[in-house]
């Protein structure tokens, strides 16, 4: 069933996954803390691209789902096992995505973008209102998980996202989404239930972001709305995914890794000019690599092939 080239891809992916998953055994604590950031954004950007890549709907709701997951973990940590909370966060994330999707995915273009941007603020205000009514303050998530534990949970979640993404690409659903992305009217006329397909993918994306939030709650220890629902997160995810390229499953990860390393370099060496340097980096990205690293890599491959052909 699996063609030779795909088998090769699967083997390479598995080896890379094992190398990444074993980081706590050979990397320093510092590398591990960088690794958590990379793993977190890889999971978020890849799951974002699963939905936004084929459909071209730009979602800014990542922070809403992430915060929902963080709060699920924060509220339940005293009563439920952590594994259950991660699963519950996924279910709640998917549920919220379904609600939002059914209400808004019939909208297109800028309306959808604006709604998703508002969603994080909406959820945040609901939680703040709840706190204000009950006098409930910030939540403490005190656990015995080490950074290595959390990192490996994220890598496992990342592996699951890649697997799901790969399966969707091979399925009728993936095919339907690519048609929707090319021309939604044509897709509808071909008998594709466009709303259902979009909502399903949005649910996957929302569930993954919520699970990521739940996994990271023990790292933040203290959870309050301003920290859990920071809108910057949504934008960072979009930028990293676009930097990598959203037309390939492996695209976002080649954006996340250099972006995180550049950001780390900047904040370590120029702590007073972080925002300025991030702005310059964005300009460089937009001007020099508009199709993302994935596009650049493919372009270089084509170029070297055509040179081989010439000689």
């Amino acid at each position, binding site marked *: 069933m699996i063609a030779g080239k795909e088998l090769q891809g699967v083997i390479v992916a598995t080896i890379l996954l094992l190398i990444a998953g074993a980081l706590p055994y050979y990397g320093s604590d510092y590398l591990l803390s960088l690794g958590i950031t990379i793993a977190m954004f890889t999971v978020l950007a890849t799951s974002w691209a699963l939905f936004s890549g084929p459909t071209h709907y730009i979602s800014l709701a990542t922070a809403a789902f992430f915060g929902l997951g963080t709060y699920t973990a924060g509220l339940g940590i005293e009563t439920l096992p952590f594994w259950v909370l991660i699963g519950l966060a996924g279910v709640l994330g998917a549920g919220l995505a379904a609600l939002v999707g059914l209400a808004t995915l019939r909208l297109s273009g800028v309306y959808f973008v604006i709604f998703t941007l508002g969603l994080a603020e909406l959820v945040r205000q609901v939680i703040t209102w709840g706190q204000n009514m009950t006098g409930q303050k910030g939540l403490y998530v005190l656990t015995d998980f080490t950074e290595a534990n959390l990192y490996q949970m994220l890598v496992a979640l990342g592996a699951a996202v890649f697997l799901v993404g790969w399966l969707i690409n091979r399925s009728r659903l993936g095919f339907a989404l690519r048609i929707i992305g090319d021309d939604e009217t044509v897709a509808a006329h071909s008998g594709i239930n466009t709303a259902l397909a979009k909502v399903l993918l949005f649910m996957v994306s929302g569930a993954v972001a919520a699970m990521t939030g739940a996994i990271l709650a023990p790292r933040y220890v203290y959870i309050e709305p301003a920290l859990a629902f920071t809108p910057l997160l949504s934008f960072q995810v979009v930028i990293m995914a676009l930097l990598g390229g959203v037309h390939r499953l492996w695209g976002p990860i080649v954006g996340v890794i250099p972006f995180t390393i550049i950001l780390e370099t900047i904040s370590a060496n120029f702590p007073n000019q972080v925002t300025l340097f991030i702005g310059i980096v964005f300009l460089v990205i937009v001007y*020099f690599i508009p199709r993302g690293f994935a596009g650049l890599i493919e372009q270089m491959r084509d170029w070297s092939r055509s040179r081989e052909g010439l000689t």
Partner: protein
Amino acid sequence: MMMKRRTALTLGAAAAASLAAPRLALAQSDVVKIGAVAPKTGPLAGGATVTQWPNVALWANQVNAKGGLMVDGGQKMVEVIEYDDQTNPGETIKAVQRLATQDNADFIIAPYGTGFNIAAAPLFDRYKYPQLAVSAITDQIEDLSSKFNGMFFLLGSTTAFVSGVVDVLKGMQNAGTLTGNKIAMVNVADAFGIELAAAARPLFEAAGFDIVYDTSYPLGTQDLSPVMKAAKAAQPNAFVAWSYPPDTFGLTEQAIIEDLQVEAYYTAVATCFPAFGNRFGAAANGILGAGGSNPDDEKFKAYAAAHMDVTGSAPDGWASATTYASLQILEQSIAAVGLDREGVTEHVKATTFDTVLGDMSFNANNFNERFWTVGQWQDGVYQGVGETGREGAKAVQLKQGWA
């Protein structure tokens, strides 16, 4: 296209090289490396640039002007490594990790903000850094210090702050300056505001006060005029706002516009900022605020003058001096036990320190029990009026109009 690709690759290589390059310049043992993580950008940057960063600069400047820290009988210069956490706890964690493992900082100054201190606590604990938390006010001190052995709390607890306000109002009532028991209370619907309001309701009621108006407004509310109008309509004797910096200013502006007639007027965070006194001038007189200090104390005077001299700005009337005191504690502990971090933690637990705020020591929960709770603008100076064991508190004055 070739050019462009090469440019991008060069940029990437440069970034990778500078990340990999060890900080050779810092790898000298004749300096003591002090890490500092706090916001320079983001929502909390405004507070941190008044309270946190100037004191770090002042302290390092003074220590190096003296020839350095006393360490094991000799002297070593201080080198401060500063990072901006962008008001993002993920960045705080990364920066503390970087300081501990890449920069090999000898000590790290506690971050700015309650959530940020708690987020960083597991890392301080893992690398055995003492964490002298100043800008972190909570009622969970006992839990946190039992989990994180080196975590200390200098500025106070939530309940103590509310009790301070209740005591001040009760005192005014007993003195006959507060003629009724009606309180209008508002709070910003965000972490610290919610926490203070929730603690205040039962305490006010137990003290015999009647909360005639009780509402909240979202963080970042621009138009506070409806809040002030409604508070005025309830005809309170005292107005209490558990507020953050922007609304501390906004509410006071509205109180002046509405000509709110109360005998006591309290706003919380940032009332003690020099900018508050500058903004409202004579109208600020009589306004009560969170935290205080004794500006007539000789030590405080010397500190404030040096602060002005080195950083070009005045300290605030509350957490500034406490932040500076935390650095004095660190300095005195290093002089006593050297650069052994666990030794410093044990020394802090066991010792009474001579600081800008007077003697300071910690109880079994790593809690400094003596601090300022309430202050008041009196003749253009922010004076401490409520404390839990500090000397030099002034008598509370009646709020008399807004002229």
